[in-house]
């Protein structure tokens, strides 16, 4: 979870090995993925085999992530054939229809022959999910999967993702700026700010007992549907310039709880309560 | 980019990083310089005949030799640049002003006005360009002024079309709706909100058009309908030299090469501008 420019999408793209090089470059760290070890050590061809099969991605904008000149069914077939060259034509079609059924696309036998422009936004996102599921991945990265959708359609897609996760047993890395979506979907939440995780906690802890001043600020800044708020809390200032990050804590200049040490030492994630990690000098001191 | 000036600087910087476009820009600067300072640069009077030097070979006195009347070819090329530049600037100016006006009005207001303007443009485009210019010159009579008018008129539709397309895209921007919401008149909306944002393709078209216009002028000159001798003009020079192609091929080569270099220069710059003005490019 995080706002524009916090690095949440870049993190996800890095995991998938989808950062364009150049200009991008991974300068350090590791991405450990099950038995495959550190993904950053793998060659591009090896990553290609993992992508789509072991890990897949669902993007924000279903309007532009499907190719308009091919049918929806064909694009899902392609995803399957890439990782299973020996599948027969008949099996392929029945598998795609099966996937379409699984993601609740209306009239799946007919919809496989539809072009993207004939489908609604919600249906396109279902096709993307079908494509993501096609090879039974262990990890699904969903990058703002419902941001472009209407409220009622968002609820459908979130429900679907939850149901599929239960059935398929995949892990989901859900990226969102919407605290409501996070609260409804996540088990654990990492809050990002200016390129780092500032708080990491089980979802109920995070919403009931936010610790980092930034998380607290965000929760105070959203209008609520369940009650009236006289005045929204405001996080003063703006995001620091990512080209020229301040020394010490990146949130210090906007923080009401900043200490002297915050100006010089960048706080590290520390487990303050079981399972609840925070990168904040003030929180660490209070415990 | 902080202001209008630095936007121009940004485009210039981008051109500077593109060797082909930079070459184009240098060619054009040299060409304009030659045209402006022709009387200083030219070693001889371009129309001064000296039959004793008819087809004189290349020499220190006549670096590019002489033509059939013994006129210095280098001087004629230099003064020819001046004639070409005049034709280019004025005919493109006619086409630019008229075309942008018609295209902007049609694109902005739409409806029957747009239909009417664009059908007239279609008719103009349906004639082969050179034939249209030919017809106009034939009616008005061949001289420099009429040549400019003819080429100007036949270039109008290109500007009208490009402007219209660009205006239609810009017209849908929220800031144009916002301009109407604060009570701006249509005229001010077009002049201050629409056109400044629709200008990039028009600039590119202007540059590329300079090349086409030069070719058309040379073509008409070649057909004897352009600038009349003895006034030096590259197309006309090429046309007369054609008769002596076997005996004195060099006489035809120099005006031909001049045309080619200048046309290439404008095309190089035009292509470079296309990239440099692309708003999606970031520095």
């Amino acid at each position: 979870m995080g706002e524009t420019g916090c690095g949440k999408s870049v993190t996800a793209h890095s995991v998938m090995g989808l950062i364009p090089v150049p200009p991008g470059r991974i300068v350090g760290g590791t991405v450990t993925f099950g038995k495959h070890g550190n993904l950053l050590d793998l060659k591009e061809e090896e990553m290609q085999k993992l992508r789509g099969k072991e890990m897949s991605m669902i993007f924000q904008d279903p309007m532009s992530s499907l190719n308009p000149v091919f049918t929806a069914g064909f694009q899902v077939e392609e995803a399957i054939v890439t990782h299973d060259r020996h599948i027969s034509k008949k099996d392929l079609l029945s598998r795609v229809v099966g996937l379409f059924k699984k993601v609740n696309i209306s009239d799946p036998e007919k919809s496989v022959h539809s072009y993207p422009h004939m489908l609604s936004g919600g249906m396109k996102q279902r096709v993307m999910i079908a494509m993501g599921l096609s090879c039974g991945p262990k990890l699904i990265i969903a990058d703002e999967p419902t941001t472009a959708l209407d409220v009622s359609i968002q609820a459908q897609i979130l429900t679907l993702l939850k149901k599929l996760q239960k059935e398929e047993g995949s892990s989901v890395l859900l990226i969102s700026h919407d605290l409501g979506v996070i609260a409804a979907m996540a088990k654990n939440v990492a809050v990002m700010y200016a390129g780092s995780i500032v708080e990491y906690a089980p979802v109920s802890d995070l919403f009931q007992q936010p610790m980092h001043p930034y998380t607290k600020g965000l929760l105070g800044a959203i209008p609520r549907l369940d009650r009236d708020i006289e005045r929204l809390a405001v996080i003063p200032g703006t995001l620091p310039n990512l080209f020229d990050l301040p020394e010490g804590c990146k949130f210090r200049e906007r923080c009401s709880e900043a200490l002297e040490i915050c100006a010089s030492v960048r706080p590290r994630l520390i487990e303050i309560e079981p399972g609840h990690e925070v990168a904040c000098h003030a929180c660490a001191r209070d415990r | 980019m902080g202001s209008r000036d630095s936007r121009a600087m940004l485009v210039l910087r981008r051109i500077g990083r593109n060797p082909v476009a930079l070459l184009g820009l240098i060619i054009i600067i040299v060409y304009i310089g030659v045209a402006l300072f022709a009387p200083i640069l030219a070693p001889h009077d371009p129309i001064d005949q000296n039959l004793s030097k008819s087809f004189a070979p290349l020499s220190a006195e006549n670096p590019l030799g002489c033509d059939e009347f013994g006129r210095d070819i280098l001087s004629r090329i230099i003064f020819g640049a001046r004639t070409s530049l005049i034709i280019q600037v004025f005919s493109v100016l006619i086409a630019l002003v008229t075309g942008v006006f018609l295209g902007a009005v049609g694109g902005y207001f739409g409806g029957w006005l747009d239909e009417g303007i664009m059908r007239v443009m279609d008719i103009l485009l349906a004639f082969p360009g050179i034939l249209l210019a030919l017809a106009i010159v034939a009616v008005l009579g061949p001289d420099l002024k009429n040549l400019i008018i003819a080429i100007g008129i036949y270039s109008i539709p290109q500007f009208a079309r490009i402007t219209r397309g660009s205006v239609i895209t810009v017209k849908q921007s929220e800031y144009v709706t916002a301009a109407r919401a604060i009570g701006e008149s249509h005229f001010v909306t077009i002049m201050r909100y629409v056109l400044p944002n629709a200008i990039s393709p028009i600039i590119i078209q202007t540059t590329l058009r300079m090349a086409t216009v030069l070719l058309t002028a040379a073509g008409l000159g070649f057909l004897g309908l352009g600038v009349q001798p003895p006034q030096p003009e590259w197309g006309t020079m090429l046309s007369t030299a054609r008769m002596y192609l076997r005996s004195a091929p060099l006489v035809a080569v120099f005006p031909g090469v001049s045309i080619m270099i200048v046309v290439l220069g404008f095309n190089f710059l035009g292509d470079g501008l296309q990239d440099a003005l692309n708003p999606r490019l970031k520095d």
Partner: protein
Amino acid sequence: MHVLEIDNLVKHFPRGGLFGGEKNPVRAVDGVSLALGRGETLGIVGESGSGKSTVGLLSLGLIPKTSGTILFMGKPVDEFEGKELILFRRKAQIVFQNPFASLNPRMIIRDIIGRVLEIHDIVPKSQIAGKVGALLQEVGLRGDQASRYPHEFSGGQRQRIAVARALASGPEFIILDEPTSALDVSVQAQILNLLGDLQQARGHAYIFISHNLAVIRHVSHRVAVMYLGKLMETAPKEAIFSRPVHPYTRALLASVPKPFVTDEDIESKVIAGDIPSPTNPPSGCRFHTRCSFCIGVCEEAEPAWREVAPKHFVACHRAEEWI
């Protein structure tokens, strides 16, 4: 008197067929009646295709209506001409959703805001620069930023500039068309607070158009819920959020993920099906294809628009059962 009164407003966008044949028009707005009181904020909430933004553009006379009436201070908006039109433009303003698209990229801020002062002769020419500076300060920017171009500002700052432009002429009402949808939550909070402060200080009315129910709750005095070009329900804010009547309103409220962990599962509250196309809306009640309380009459007859409680209007055949 109401600032703005809309009665039975209809807007169809024609779609020409390839060979002249008329296809079904897009029925963007199909019989909407609303009124906006002085100093009031009316929230219009709806999903895509509901026609909420079209209502905004129609209210300002920025696009022609198909039928119905729009009255500003009792006078029909689409009959304004010349001086009257200019005066109306002065009194009615708009802030758009995308602050990256709503400011002319080739004008500096002083001109963007200054043009409003100039057109409407708000202050003498010599005082325009000073007045622009004052307006910028009023929206939380610095006066010395006036000589910059829009691209030098962040999204939130640009939206402040757009607000300053709307304020410059001292309007009676401002249409806010999803003014915070393109912004981050923390920036949204700043803009919402600013809009509230400005209304308190200046007393203008807002029509706040949004798809975000929580934002609508935060800003509105009264709320109108739209679906496929029609009003489903309008009521004072307290009523619509604590005692919603229309099944669509109730389902919409339930399907918003809440920013706290609840025991209730989002699954049980989902509205089934896709939003039908506004070119071919369902017969009878437009919501009947997705409504879990649909009965026979809903498919045939359009429900009457009626007051079921004080100031609480609903268009649903079964509304009385749920009061």
